[in-house]
């Protein structure tokens, strides 16, 4: 009988310990769940609060860096274009001064006068040129008038304006009342060609340079 009670005691002890262990384990599981839930909530709060701010910050900082970088590249391109303009202007000055063996400026000037007179399309015109070209035109006014008249097929009276204009070379031609004017200076032509070349440079030279860099 004593041993039976002993067995009962052992059984009560075992069940009791099991029950106590279960209570603690359940409490631990519940505690873990409570903390996990709190952490999940915090993650959601933080995500909702920080994410839009980070997106805005990213857009602001990277946008500003790109803009700044883009501006630097544009400035570099502008510098290159200005160098080309300077080289071209320099060579045009040499041509005008007759120092370029490849180009006969007198021929160029004659053609510029002809183009401008043709564009104005009147029998009497005023020609404006820089000081040195004005001197040349004055000396060869008859010959130039004759050449223009012959080329256009009607008599044109060319008068030289009293005051020279400031330009590298070429002419500006107006009718007597100044209602029609055609600008055919080398400076103007240079600007036109450079405008055209800007897009060509962008599509060829600069594109090549940029592509080499990104490859």
């Amino acid at each position, binding site marked *: 009988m004593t041993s039976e009670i002993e067995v009962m005691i052992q059984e009560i002890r075992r069940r009791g310990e099991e029950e106590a262990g279960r209570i603690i384990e359940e409490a631990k599981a519940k505690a873990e769940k409570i903390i996990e839930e709190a952490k999940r909530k*915090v993650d959601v709060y933080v995500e909702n609060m920080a994410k839009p701010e980070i997106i805005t910050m990213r857009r602001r900082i*990277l946008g500003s*860096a790109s803009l700044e970088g883009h501006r630097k590249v544009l400035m570099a391109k502008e510098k290159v274009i200005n160098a080309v303009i300077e080289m*071209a202007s320099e060579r045009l000055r040499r041509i005008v001064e007759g120092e370029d063996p490849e180009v006969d400026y007198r021929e160029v000037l004659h053609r510029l006068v002809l183009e401008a007179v043709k564009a104005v399309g009147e029998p009497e015109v005023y020609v404006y040129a820089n000081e040195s070209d004005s001197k040349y035109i004055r000396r060869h006014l008859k010959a130039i008038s004759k050449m223009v008249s012959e080329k256009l097929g009607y008599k044109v009276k060319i008068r030289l304006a009293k005051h020279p204009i400031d330009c590298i070379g070429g002419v500006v031609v107006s009718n007597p009342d100044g209602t029609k004017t055609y600008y055919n200076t080398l400076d103007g032509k240079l600007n036109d060609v450079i405008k055209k070349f800007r897009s060509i440079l962008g599509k060829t030279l600069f594109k090549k340079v940029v592509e080499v860099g990104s490859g």
Partner: protein
Amino acid sequence: MAEAISRLVEEEARIAAMIEEAKKKAKRIVEEAERKAREILDPKRIEEEVRRLMEEAEEKIKKEAEEVRARYEKVAERVESIPEEELRKIADHVVREVVGS
């Protein structure tokens, strides 16, 4: 026999006390977890966490921005380093267009 029964009763009482103690401990465990959860959910702590995340993100984005700047800088350098000879060729081409020869 009486002694054995008495031991049985004693054991039952001891086990009942042990379970009671386990329940108390379980309650403390849950209460501690709830306290920690409140701490975790404290708005100040969340604010601090958001600030920390923002700072981390800002640092990362600033590094990215530096890389972006450096990439553009390299492009600008390459543009500026186009050989003079190449530019002169373009200038000569421009001049030919201007004088029409």
